């Protein structure tokens, strides 16, 4: 029994969360530093996991398995494949920046309230989310995953509803109303999805008699498990619905703009960059692995939905007046790409989708957090309130631009690699889909550049003139992310070599072969 590395990686932030929450009200700053330290320590652990993971090795590594709830046939089973380890690394990587960026977002407005301790709560909740996300990326037991998938909602819900963006349009109580609306919408959407999934999870157990991915795969292999086609399809739909809500896929997306708009920027980043990835991750790991046939059966519809998300999200992004909502819709478009890559069911598509999850996480974080710095300076989310920022705060503008360029996936920055892989993968399997998706590239350029032009260029608007440039803390958030974007754009190999084997496993699960190039086939 080796050291339970994965459990440790997940447990550390959980414990840290409790510790942070326990920090007395007065010692606000201490809580912040504690949270930051914990997240960094987690990053170290995640790094060790990444290092220990052997690309060539077994499908699931660093596995742990303990009996948990016998009656439900539930085991506490952990293990990471290439996809899991990549996303685990992403999560551990982003959280410190989230914390750093949200340094002042949860300072209580009135300091007299002695018992209400928002700051501690804020950071504790973030760490709690981190713990749950990490665990859900490593869970190889469907039930365990489901539990985390659902439980994760609660801290997120409090983060969204409890700590609104101070830079809101309109009066305080109005903002509070919108905020709780957003939070409730977020929770109910996802809860509904989760409950549908619950039915499917139970159904799966009734059919398969086990929750363990490995056992089910085994049973499938030796033919002891034969799902009726209709059953498999129903179960698949149950799972997919939940993930599509989380992802979010058109037309189940409307919770995201509200949530991201109303939440504080770091939390918004937490939503898109980290938590939503669980949805797409789960499509890849559970939908395809558990229900290969049904997945193939559903592919056409899902591809259409993905394409709609891509174009629709981008167009709506163009039409937004609110910076954060704009980025939210952009994310919807990007999630469309991820789903497209997953269900194209080609090696390039799925590797691309996995890279996309990571890169989108980083790029959105970069863009959104810088946007957050901008918003806190001006105290408004409306694009119309900005203009000429680059004249007064060139560094801010520069970082913002790079974030934007990453979002429109400019070659040389990380997202390009993944986006192109997804496109190629989709194109080689479904040429039309590939071509439609490329429209998304043009639209991406449109909304990013329009946003940049309206906010950063032109004559300096009133209220901007005295805007200070990025401070050290903010640079500490922006620069590493940008560096990472460039590095992974130029040299994505560390990721691809981890991801490729996992993708091959998935391809094998769904028994799909990459379409052969015409010329090769001719030879």
């Amino acid at each position, binding site marked *: 029994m080796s050291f339970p590395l994965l459990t440790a990686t997940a447990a550390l932030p959980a414990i840290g969360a409790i510790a942070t929450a326990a920090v007395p009200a007065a010692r606000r700053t201490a809580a912040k530093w504690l949270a930051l330290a914990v997240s960094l320590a987690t990053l170290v652990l995640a790094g060790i996991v990444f290092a220990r993971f052997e690309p060539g090795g077994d499908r699931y590594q660093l596995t742990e398995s303990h009996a*948990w709830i*016998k009656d439900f046939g539930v085991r506490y089973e952990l293990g990471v494949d290439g996809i899991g380890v990549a996303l685990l690394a992403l999560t551990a990587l982003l959280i410190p920046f989230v914390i750093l960026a949200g340094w002042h977002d949860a300072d209580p407005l009135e300091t007299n309230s002695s*018992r209400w301790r928002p700051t501690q709560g804020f950071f504790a909740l973030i760490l709690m989310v981190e713990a749950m996300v990490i665990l859900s990326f490593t869970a190889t037991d469907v039930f365990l995953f489901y539990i985390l998938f659902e439980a994760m909602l609660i801290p997120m819900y409090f983060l969204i509803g409890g700590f609104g963006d101070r830079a809101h349009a309109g009066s305080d109580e109005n903002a509070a109303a919108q905020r709780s609306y957003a939070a409730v919408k977020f929770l109910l959407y996802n809860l*509904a999805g989760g409950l549908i999934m619950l039915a499917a999870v139970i159904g799966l157990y009734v059919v398969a008699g086990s929750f363990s991915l490995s056992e089910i795969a085994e049973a499938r292999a030796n033919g002891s498990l034969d799902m009726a086609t209709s059953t498999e399809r129903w179960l698949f739909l149950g799972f997919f619905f939940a993930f599509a809500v989380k992802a979010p896929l058109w037309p189940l997306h409307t919770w995201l703009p509200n949530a991201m708009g109303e939440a504080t920027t770091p939390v918004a980043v937490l939503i898109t960059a980290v938590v939503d990835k669980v949805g797409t991750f789960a499509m890849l790991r559970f939908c395809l692995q558990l229900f290969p046939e049904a997945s193939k059966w559903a592919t056409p519809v899902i591809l259409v939905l993905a394409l709609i998300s891509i174009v629709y999200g981008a167009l709506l992004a163009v039409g937004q007046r609110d910076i954060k909502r704009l980025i939210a819709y952009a994310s919807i478009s990007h999630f469309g790409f991820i789903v497209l890559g997953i269900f194209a069911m080609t090696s390039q598509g799925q590797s691309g989708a996995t890279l996309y999850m990571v890169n989108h996480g980083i790029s959105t974080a970069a863009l959104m957090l810088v946007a957050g710095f901008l918003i806190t300076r001006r105290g408004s989310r409306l694009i119309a309130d900005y203009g000429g920022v680059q004249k007064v705060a060139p560094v801010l503008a520069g970082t913002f631009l790079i974030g934007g360029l990453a979002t429109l996936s400019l070659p040389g920055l990380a997202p390009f690699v993944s986006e192109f892989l997804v496109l190629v993968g989709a194109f080689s399997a479904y040429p039309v889909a590939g071509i439609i998706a490329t429209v998304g590239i043009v639209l991406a350029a449109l909304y990013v550049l329009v946003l940049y032009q309206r906010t950063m260029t032109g004559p300096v608007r009133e209220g901007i003139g005295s805007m200070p440039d990025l401070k050290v803390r903010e640079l500490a958030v922006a620069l590493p992310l940008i560096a990472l974007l460039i590095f992974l754009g130029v040299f994505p190999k560390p990721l691809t070599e981890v991801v490729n084997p996992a993708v091959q496993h998935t391809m094998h699960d769904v028994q799909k072969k990459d379409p052969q190039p015409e010329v090769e086939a001719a030879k």
Partner: protein
Amino acid sequence: MSATAVHSLWTTAGGVTSAAPGDRFTAPTIEYAQLAPVLIVVGAAVLGILVEAFVPRRARYTTQVFLTIVAIAAAFAAVVGLAADGYATKNAHIAAMGAVAVDGPALFLQGTILLVSMVSVFTFAERRLDPAAGGNRVDSFAAQAGSVPGSDSEKAAVKAGFTTTEVFPLALFSVAGMLVFPAANDLLTLFIALEVFSLPLYLLCAVARRKRLMSQEAAVKYFLLGAFSSAFLLFGIALLYGYAGTVSYAGIANVVDGSVQQIDPALAGTMGNDALLLIGGALLLMGLLFKVGAVPFHMWTPDVYQGAPTPVTGFMAAATKVAAFGALLRLLYVVLPGLTWDLRPVMWGVAIVTMLGGAVVAITQTDIKRLLAYSSIAHAGFILAGVIAASPEGISSVLFYLGVYSFVTVGAFAVVTLVRDAGGEATHLSKWAGLGRRSPLTAAVFAVFLLSFAGIPLTSGFSGKFAVFKAAADGGAGGLVVVGVISSAIAAFFYIRVIVLMFFSEPKADGPTVAVPSPLTMTTIAVGVAVTLVLGLAPQYFLDLASQAGVFVR
């Protein structure tokens, strides 16, 4: 066992009449040891009445509380002892000449009931919440139930610092009835037990210290409707007796599955062979569904829950459900297994409307107690789904759910007692706005309970729900599971609403304050939280318990 032996507890056996006058009398064999839990509680109750009669007023409260707690603890110890002697499993058998079953479900449920009543008695005994009246600490019961609210006599009683310490013996009687109810092995015992635990509850509902009018109204409604339903139940019993010629479960079961032919041919000729059975079964079912508060027999629930003194509500909501579902299970599994196929559609229908109805109507509730009432209705629906899964797994899942649910309920109502303003408990939801800001801990605890009700993972509510739905799906009731998850989604909405209210809305200036309770209520709440979290994270042990206990003796 032979039919004669069964009901010979009531009629001295005809078999021995020919014997010499000296030994005409053969005493019925009563296994007192195995009935110990019930006997202890009843004894304590009787003792309690004597206390009321003879112990000076000053000392009564202390004495009663002590007596009650000791009695319940002792009874629980007895239950544990019986279980330890394997009465839950291998030695399970019918005691008291067929009147009472001592088997797994019975003991498990009795244990649950006793623990729940223990913690609810703590809230009965709470004396720190209400402002002292006439210089004495007072609990949430009327100074003098008899006196008219606002009348001089009441003022006098208050000034004199009277308190209704009778609630404790009443509660004990009720507990005794509940202990017998799920263990009853013939219809008569069932009926008696029903009345024994109902009647004291009617009274308990009426004796609230504040808002007495509502309290009395609740009592009247509960009483009339309860009596009404028990009349139906009794008629059902009569018809079943007519059909089977016996009231013992085993006997009826034999007749139902045709191993014994009882019914009068002439009667059969007129009204068909099974009419009596079916109608009787249906009526019996209805009587029990009334007690569990299933739609459409649920309408008393909201009013009574709202009107009754909150500690009583908690007790009622938790313990009654446990007892009633226990009886329902035994009825369906022991008496009417032959009828499963006839009753299934009906049960399906009831379960569905109960789940959906409870959840939907709860959305627009504005009073926290009514809200919890409707939520309890929805939960009754979920449990019914487990009941319908005709399998041992179904039984154990229901047992587990009952255990989970009852503790959460008591805890939740205990929290409700803490949130007070000038008019006593502030139960209107609007008053709860911003509670999270003013007293985070209380709000957090309540939120935990709500999440457990909503069945969010890592809380006991989820484990229970999962167990029940899994059993249902296994039992081929997949449709119920789907309806279940849908109504859970709806239900989530109003639980979330309360959380939003507590945490995300600004506290009102004239908002309620959270009274600091005595260790008694604190224990209740703490136990609730503990059970919620433990059964949420590591339910295995209790699931084992439930599944071991999941076999009815016949």
